[in-house]
């Protein structure tokens, strides 16, 4: 089970409202490469993993992704909270604002609500872990894209932290895939 800690994994203190940036960053909340997608992917795939190491890793990374979801939600809220109606109307955040106001809703930057089709569970550890490697890279690309269009240092500092975590997760997934391919494969296919 889970327990909530009343703190962010990495602090978020954004001084300047920026609804345009909020409409981009929300993609990492509810978009296909976002943090909800990541956490649901790993926390769903872990049931059918073959050994303790892989079950632990998917549990731990899936849990960390929940903390990242909270960080991204915090960024969106802080960017939108003090934006004026006029600033919102003249930004891409306007369409989102009609249904969600200055709240945080799991959708991508096109307004497409979160969809579990963004990830798979095959119960095949190789297929699932290879997807996880790609997912970490795709999330890293979205953070790269946010850094290309954002000039707010308060936002970019947090985005750089999240981007680095994608790289570390990729590394750890690669190590478990290697473990399974080199040492555990016969066990998996011998009906353990």
């Amino acid at each position, binding site marked *: *089970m889970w327990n909530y800690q009343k703190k962010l994994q990495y602090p978020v203190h954004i001084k300047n409202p920026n609804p345009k940036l909020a409409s981009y960053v929300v993609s990492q909340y509810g978009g296909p490469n976002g943090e909800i997608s990541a956490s649901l992917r790993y926390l769903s795939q*872990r*049931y059918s993993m073959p*050994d*303790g*190491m892989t*079950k*632990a890793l998917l*549990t*731990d990374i899936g849990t960390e992704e929940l903390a990242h979801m909270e960080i991204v939600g915090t960024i969106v809220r802080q960017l939108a909270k003090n934006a004026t109606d006029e600033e919102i109307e003249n930004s891409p955040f306007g369409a989102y604002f009609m249904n969600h106001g200055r709240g945080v809703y799991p959708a991508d930057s096109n307004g497409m609500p979160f969809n579990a089709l963004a990830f798979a569970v095959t119960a095949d550890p190789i297929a699932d872990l290879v997807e996880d490697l790609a997912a970490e890279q795709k999330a890293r690309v979205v953070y790269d894209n946010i850094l290309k269009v954002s000039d707010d240092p308060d936002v970019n500092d947090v985005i750089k932290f999240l981007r680095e975590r994608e790289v570390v997760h990729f590394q750890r997934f690669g190590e478990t895939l290697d473990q399974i391919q080199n040492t555990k494969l016969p066990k998996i296919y011998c009906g353990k």
Partner: protein
Amino acid sequence: MSQNELLKQISAYAFAEKEWNLYLDTHPTDKDALKKHKAMAEKTRELVKEYEQNFGPLTSMSALDPNCFDWITEPWPWEQCN
């Protein structure tokens, strides 16, 4: 206490703590509830300590074995203990 019995006790006291938690969210100045919540939280902490000393970590932060990271040992909660 056996591992299963201790785990059952932890779940019961932690659940009671959670019930008082939810009640207190909407009744934050109920002194009687505050007292009961505290008692459930303390009992849960005590039982968790006893469990972890005997049967291994319930959270990664309490993985204490200096030779091997016993957090990764099986079974996981969704698996049947035989």
